[in-house]
């Protein structure tokens, strides 16, 4: 156990991915410590979403290693196996199950058996019910629990999806643009929520919104053309000449 806690939670080394000759990721390396919250920024096409696809098993890298908790080679596993290992993902566009109620969305995400027959026979336990209520109050959707997710506002869908991530209780949360389309107050609340989540989980956030990233006040990694351009606090990377060049147009 000791060996593992001293090792990185997520270890990405030399990962490259090409789509029809386009190098979406180019020798990307990134290390996250257990308990860390990390923000990833970068212009469009920098490879942020592809990186998440590689970590969650949606895309296989052409080369490179992706190791989780020091022992799991993620490049050999599929999405379901990686999710079960403890990596949860929130998509850029809020992806909830529109024809399920808010409560059922969270129920489906709740940590537990994922097998066919276990779910055929599943009965909601008291502990699960409590956890469900707890999550619904954290994401402030308790009074809308029986409504269809389709009826939620954009911001509420984002929060529901974060709630689903919490229900999965993963060791690492990958959060893709959580505040896209949110009002300023919603953005501030989301930053607060992520900080609370970070007390017990590791979080990797991809975001464009600089105010939000500043709010989070965590280590920032800047991606550009599929590899890491700079890493450090937001002030440090903002002072980096190359970063300024990339962001303000070459």
């Amino acid at each position, binding site marked *: 156990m000791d060996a593992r806690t001293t090792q990185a939670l997520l270890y990405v080394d030399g990962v490259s991915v090409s789509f029809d000759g386009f190098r979406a990721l180019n020798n990307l390396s990134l290390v996250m410590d257990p308990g860390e919250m990390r923000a990833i920024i970068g212009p469009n096409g920098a490879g942020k979403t592809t990186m998440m696809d590689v970590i*969650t098993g*949606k895309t296989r890298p052409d080369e490179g290693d992706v190791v989780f908790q020091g022992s799991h080679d993620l490049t050999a596993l*599929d*999405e*379901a196996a990686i*999710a*079960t290992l403890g990596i*949860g*993902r929130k*998509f850029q566009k809020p*992806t*909830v*199950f*529109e*024809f*399920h*109620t808010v409560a*059922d969305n969270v*129920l*489906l*995400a709740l940590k537990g058996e*994922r*097998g*066919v027959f276990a*779910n*055929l*026979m*599943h009965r909601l336990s008291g502990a699960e019910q409590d956890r469900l209520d707890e999550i619904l109050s954290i994401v402030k959707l308790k009074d809308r629990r*029986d*409504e*269809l997710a*389709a*009826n939620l506002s954009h911001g509420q869908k984002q929060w529901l999806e974060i709630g*689903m991530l919490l229900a*999965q209780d993963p060791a690492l949360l990958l959060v893709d643009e959580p505040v896209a389309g949110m009002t300023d107050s919603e953005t501030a609340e989301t930053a607060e929520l992520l900080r609370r989540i970070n007390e017990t989980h590791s979080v990797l956030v991809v975001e464009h919104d600089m105010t939000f990233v500043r709010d989070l006040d965590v280590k920032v990694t800047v991606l550009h053309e599929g590899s890491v351009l700079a890493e450090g606090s937001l002030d440090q990377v903002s002072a980096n000449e190359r970063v300024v060049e990339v962001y303000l147009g070459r």
Partner: protein
Amino acid sequence: MTRRPILLTFITGQCAALVALLVALAVLVPALNLLVPPTSAFHVPTHFVVLFGKWLTYALLAVSLDLVWGYCGILSLGHGAFFALGGYAMGMYLMRQIGPRGVYAHPVLPDFMVFLNWKELPVAWWGFDHFPYAMLMVLLVPGVLAFALGWFAFRARVTGVYLSIITQAMTYALLLGFFRNNFGFGGNNGLTDFKDILGFNVQAAGTRAALFALSALALAGGFLIARGIVTSKLGKVLVAIRDAESRTRFLGYRVERYKLFVFVISAMMAGLAGALYVPQVGIINPSEFSPANSIEAVIWVAVGGRGTLAGAALGAVIVNAAKSWFTGALPEYWLFALGGLFVLTTLLLPKGIVGSISEHWPRRRNGGAPRLPAAAAAQPAE
């Protein structure tokens, strides 16, 4: 708000009501056929018993199709193949029951084999003289085929229209295979001239009434199994797969296993429907594999209401009732009417008959709010 209790019983009692109706039909129709004298106005003639019985087997096929299409998004355009395979398994049993009473009076071989100058029974036919074995095959053959197809297709993540095309190709391939005499299942003519089932004459009014009752009970059973599946947490996973497959994967569910499970159950249900269909219509031939049959079943489900189960059964009965009337009155226009019905349903009632009814009623109560699921609608949301 005075209307709520009625509404509530309709929604929550919909399932119970349908099962009760089917059980009542299973008792009433045979009774009115057998016990009421033909002179009475309440007498149900035997040809109606056979016709209604046939519709009930179609309704079971529709429920099985709705289970995969309405709840898991698998649009099978080959469900008629599972129905036909179940039918052939039953037909083979019925052929073996003819025994030496065939035209050629061969003690073991069915007539068509004697005609083809075959000397012994093909291996595929072994055991079909035993009813339990034949019934096992009724479920097993469609189930194994669905498993094999699903295993490859779902693991390779074939979805949407591509999967539909594969299922369509499957039923077409079987159609061509069963047409061949050397395939060993009666070729073009199929299996017919059945004499008896479990010792009862298949032509007798009593046997027909019993088959009707069994069809009604099988539909009720199939409906309850499907209800049980879709209302379980597994059913919620299926709907999640239907609406956002990759999201479901990222929650840790192995989508292909869920699809495989529901596809196999559905195929077995369709097989049972086919097995009940064959003794009632008295024949099974390769035309049951024709892609048009499978597509017609999709229309039943669409008309009745996709993703409602009860609607699928209702759609099968309504469309087939219309078909019976049309093919009697205006036979040359039936296909136009069927096509028109499908177009109109798609345009005007995209949720089908039952889907539109259950959408409309809660909406009126909640003053224009979009559709709520039954559970939420039953609670005072205001």
